[in-house]
């Protein structure tokens, strides 16, 4: 397969969303290729979370289309699929990592049940297999196997976030949405989590759309970057290119406002 034959996993055309009169995001166009990590950066209220929610079909956009290529090669507009299909997609072929682990986890049930939930939804009915799969995934996200029966509320913030990732990846999704996954974590835990995500991306060939306001996270993880302001994409390109040579005044401001420690 030559480079030209690689077809985009997701193709977004003229996507706009309004909350009544209020602009959420406008005229978004981009393509995402398999194995690619796309960062969406911007300040609060720039429309990045709206865009993420539209892409993950949690809200139906006012206008526009998003074509998704399924594993079997079939391409469908996400917004014309039935709700049943959308929900199936979201819990099998996709993952969604929330900023707050409590939004993405079931805090009342054990870590093992959290990891196994998607599999049980797919019809897995063998307890021992479910449990060993859960233990396997916990070790892949660096959580001790003996924590498998503990409830997530006994976990630290970083562990909860890693558990959330494990819970999403257990069905081998092809596309994962992440909303500020390193948001509430301290710097050293953040660094380990980013390392882990990078490793998983390269091991599993995941595509990721990650929303962040932290340019360092974008720099470390993403191949491409989209800068949003006021609901629109004002600049996009290869991450290194955009961050090293920002064209838009706003992007320049963002890049220059990164806190430099030391020299």
């Amino acid at each position, binding site marked *: 397969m030559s480079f030209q034959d690689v077809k985009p996993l997701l193709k977004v055309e003229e996507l706009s969303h309004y909350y009544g009169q209020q602009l959420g995001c406008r005229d978004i166009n981009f393509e995402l290729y398999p194995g690619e990590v796309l960062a969406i950066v911007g300040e609060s209220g720039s429309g990045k979370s709206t865009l993420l929610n539209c892409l993950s079909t949690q809200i139906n956009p006012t206008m526009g289309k998003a074509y998704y290529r399924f594993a079997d090669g079939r391409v469908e507009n996400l917004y014309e699929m039935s709700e049943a299909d959308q929900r199936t997609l979201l819990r099998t072929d996709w993952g969604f990592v929330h900023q707050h682990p409590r939004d993405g986890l079931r805090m009342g*049930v054990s870590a093992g049940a959290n990891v*196994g939930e998607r599999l049980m939804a797919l019809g897995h*009915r063998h307890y021992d297999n479910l449990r060993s799969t859960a233990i396997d995934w916990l070790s892949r996200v660096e959580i001790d196997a003996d924590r498998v029966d503990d409830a997530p509320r006994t976990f630290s913030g970083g562990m909860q976030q890693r558990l959330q990732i494990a819970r999403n990846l257990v069905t081998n999704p092809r596309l994962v949405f992440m909303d500020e996954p390193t948001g509430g974590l301290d710097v050293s835990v953040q660094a380990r989590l980013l390392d882990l995500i990078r490793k998983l991306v390269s091991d599993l060939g995941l595509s990721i759309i990650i929303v962040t306001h932290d340019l360092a996270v974008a720099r470390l993880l993403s191949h491409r970057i989209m800068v949003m302001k006021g609901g629109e994409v004002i600049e996009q390109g290869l991450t290194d290119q955009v961050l090293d040579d920002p064209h838009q005044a706003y992007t320049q401001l963002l890049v220059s406002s990164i806190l430099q420690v030391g020299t």
Partner: protein
Amino acid sequence: MSLAEISTEQDAYNFAYLDEQTKRMIRRAILKGIAIPGYQVPFAAREMPMPYGWGTGGVQVTASILGPDDTLKVIDQGSDDTTNAVAIRNFFAVTSGVEMTMKTSEASVIQTRHRIPEEELTEDQTLIYQVPIPEPLRFLEPRETETRKMHALSEYGLMHVKLYEDIATHGHIATTYAYPVMVEGRYVMDPSPTPKFDNPKMHKNRALQLFGAGREKRIYALPPFTDVVSLDFEDHPFQIQEWPDTCCAMCGAKDVYFDEVILDNEGSRMFVCSDSDYCETRQADGHYGEMHAEYKERIQ
């Protein structure tokens, strides 16, 4: 000579308490429930002259299907003579005047709080359950909008999360009542707080089974001969409780559901059938348990 014959005054109550329009509304909900086994049909539950939790849902269903020719039996945890059963039986004795019975085989309508009679039911009978919380997914998913969607799309992975959690915590499925069932391979249903011992009796039962939840305003139904399968795991199959060494102290029955009765301050105790009619029928047929003689002597 009855009151109706000597008086020209109208009865104080409409037959079986509820007005005819309300009964009609409830019957429509029941018919819809029967048409879609296991599906929770919303209905405009009325306020009843008893508190929520005392079976207002079951009472409304019973009141709606009861006719003058019916024979009613009311049980509470299998027994005809416990508080809830007595209260509801008196209520219908006053408001409908239908014939009351304690014999399972003679009843055409049986309202129950939780237990299913040990004696096998027939095509001519209707079993009505009082249901406190009709939504099996409720404690895992608090949003009603979401649980309705999950039922609509048959997304029941969550139900197994609960059973998984049971095994992870206790080593076995520790849910012993309100054990979730799959109805006709489509809807997951909460069989009210029925002990799981009775779950197999729901499967392909000859009687019509109706479920009424008054506070939550839901009615659901199992038509006769409906598939009712208790959820489980391949390596942890559904099992009912067994008490191989226990038999009823009064009638000697085995393989039934028991009540434990404390006898004195020394902690001595006996086990008797939870289904009082079943126990008495067996005693009348000459089956006696080890404490039967002593008991008869004491009540002399």
